[in-house]
């Protein structure tokens, strides 16, 4: 017996010489929605959009309709799916977004048919296949769009000429490891994202470092997505802020995201975890499974009976050196499951904020029993297994409130 079925139907007609009229229907066990979209034939731009609910779930779902208008003016190019997910999916409803993506696919294909029909007026024998091949071979706007969208997707590169250290700061250079003084061990946030190296982050490295200093961390690791910071850049940041900055990298693999330390290779795209592990081992680095159960316990998936024993059998754990058991972007339950699995497998446990915003840095961190000043020392410390994941900000707040209490008494 079927557990679930979703049907989507889209038809595209030519409304007039300039406009395509697209009607889409999505109907499944949970939702039933419709979209009417008009698109310009010449530039495939959204001219109008209307949505309609038939069945929905929450009492607030109907609010989504008004936000569909934010898609007005969208152009069906290579970036359209991303825009629809981001704007329609996040502000309105992901199911409208899903249907709208189908409508865009259908509009693109219909525009092809319209173009072919026009071309056939001059060449009656022109086959669709030949028309498409000729179009694909013709350079022009499409290539430009491709290049533009590729630029948008990639992280803007820092200019080599950018003066990171201002002359004024050179005058009174702080001690780079000032934050380490007086500390027997140290607390480091091992998982931090900066903008623009991680386009999903909203905080610059300077903002994150200043905040990390302010809250009393001893250091942070820059672990931007598939991005390698140069040693010189990081050294400049250390000098500028008088704070311990270390390098890592968050690499997406077929088994999820991995925090990697000690590997300078610039890895793009998705790699097999096993291959990554081999590279890291060759570089004598260290690899941590980042938020290994992110999203595992949402909705029905959380009720499937995923026990720590069962979770520990996941293939990925044989290829990692440690498990991130405190991550700022997942639920407490998901962190707890990661902690149980780490304990079961006897793997070391780390903490990191996964900060994408200044206010998030240090919510979780890793407390090492020895001081760390260099990347080599970080890797040695990680390999020693002598550390603990800690809810750093929470500990600080507790300490502060108990101190204030004592002072008041």
């Amino acid at each position, binding site marked *: 017996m079927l557990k*679930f079925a979703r049907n989507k139907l889209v038809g595209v007609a030519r409304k007039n010489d300039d406009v395509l009229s697209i009607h889409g229907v999505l109907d499944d066990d949970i939702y039933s929605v419709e979209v009417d979209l008009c698109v310009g034939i010449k530039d495939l731009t959204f001219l109008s959009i209307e949505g309609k609910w038939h069945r929905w779930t929450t009492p607030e779902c109907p*609010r989504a309709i008004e936000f569909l208008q934010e898609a007005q003016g969208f152009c069906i190019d290579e970036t359209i799916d991303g825009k629809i997910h981001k704007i329609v999916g*996040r502000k309105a409803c992901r199911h409208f977004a899903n249907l709208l993506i*189908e409508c865009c696919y259908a509009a693109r*294909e219909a525009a092809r048919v319209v173009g072919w029909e026009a071309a056939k007026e001059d060449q009656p024998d022109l086959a669709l296949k030949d028309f498409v091949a000729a179009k694909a071979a013709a350079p022009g706007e499409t290539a430009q769009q491709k290049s533009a969208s590729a630029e948008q997707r990639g992280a803007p590169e820092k200019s080599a000429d950018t003066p990171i250290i201002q002359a004024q700061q050179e005058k009174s250079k702080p001690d780079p490891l000032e934050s380490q003084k007086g500390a027997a061990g140290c607390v480091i946030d091992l998982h931090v994202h900066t903008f623009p190296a991680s386009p999903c982050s909203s905080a610059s490295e300077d903002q994150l470092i200043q905040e990390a200093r302010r809250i009393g961390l001893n250091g942070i690791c820059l672990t931007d997505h598939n991005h390698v910071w140069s040693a010189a850049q990081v050294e400049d940041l250390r000098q500028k802020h008088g704070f311990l900055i270390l390098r890592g990298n968050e690499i997406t693999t*077929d088994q999820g995201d991995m925090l990697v330390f000690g590997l300078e290779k610039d890895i793009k795209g998705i790699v097999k975890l096993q291959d990554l592990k081999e590279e890291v081992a060759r570089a004598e680095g260290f690899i941590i499974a980042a938020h290994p159960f992110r999203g595992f316990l949402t909705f029905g998936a959380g009720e499937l009976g*995923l026990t720590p024993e069962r979770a520990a059998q996941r293939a990925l754990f044989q290829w990692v050196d440690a498990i991130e058991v405190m991550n700022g972007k997942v639920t407490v339950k998901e962190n707890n499951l990661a902690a149980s699995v780490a304990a079961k497998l006897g793997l070391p446990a780390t903490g990191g904020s996964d900060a994408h915003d200044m206010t998030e840095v240090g919510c979780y961190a890793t407390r090492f029993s020895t001081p760390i000043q260099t990347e080599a020392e970080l890797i040695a410390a990680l390999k020693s297994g002598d550390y603990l994941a800690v809810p750093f900000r929470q500990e600080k707040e507790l300490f502060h409130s108990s101190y204030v209490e004592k002072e008041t008494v």
Partner: protein
Amino acid sequence: MSENILKFSMNRCTSVEPVDETTLKSVCRLTDTFTSACVEILVRLPDLEIVAVQGQFHHEWRQLSDPNEVLQKVLGVRVGSGMLKIIKGLMGDAEDLDQLTYMVEECCHGIILALTRDILIKAPVNQEGKLEFFSKMVRDNIRLYNRCAAFAPGTRLTQGIEPPQ
């Protein structure tokens, strides 16, 4: 030229059914003016790992030498958070593979929606009960906060819920 004759039409159907107690099968079929295609995945519970995948793809002008060769790359991927980036990354971004990749994603969405349905079916019928039920859902899964119009700040479902850090 008649304005009422369609220039293009498509029909995509995704269905999910249990194979046994620990396996779900999700099938996505696409029939459009140019395409006839089907992708099927088997997902193992409870960790939702893709344990088998196969497909067919016929298109008016696009030729895929062996869709199954590409599809095998998603074996072992887990259905859930972050899967789209992983599936796209593993299957590659060649234009000819767009639809095949999208159909794998649709199969995965089908699995998630099938599991979601099991939860939603427990929602109370009355308005007050519904508000409480969905509000608790956001509270328990804070990532849902501000993920759509219904869960945006200021709605009845997010009242009294602190935004995630």
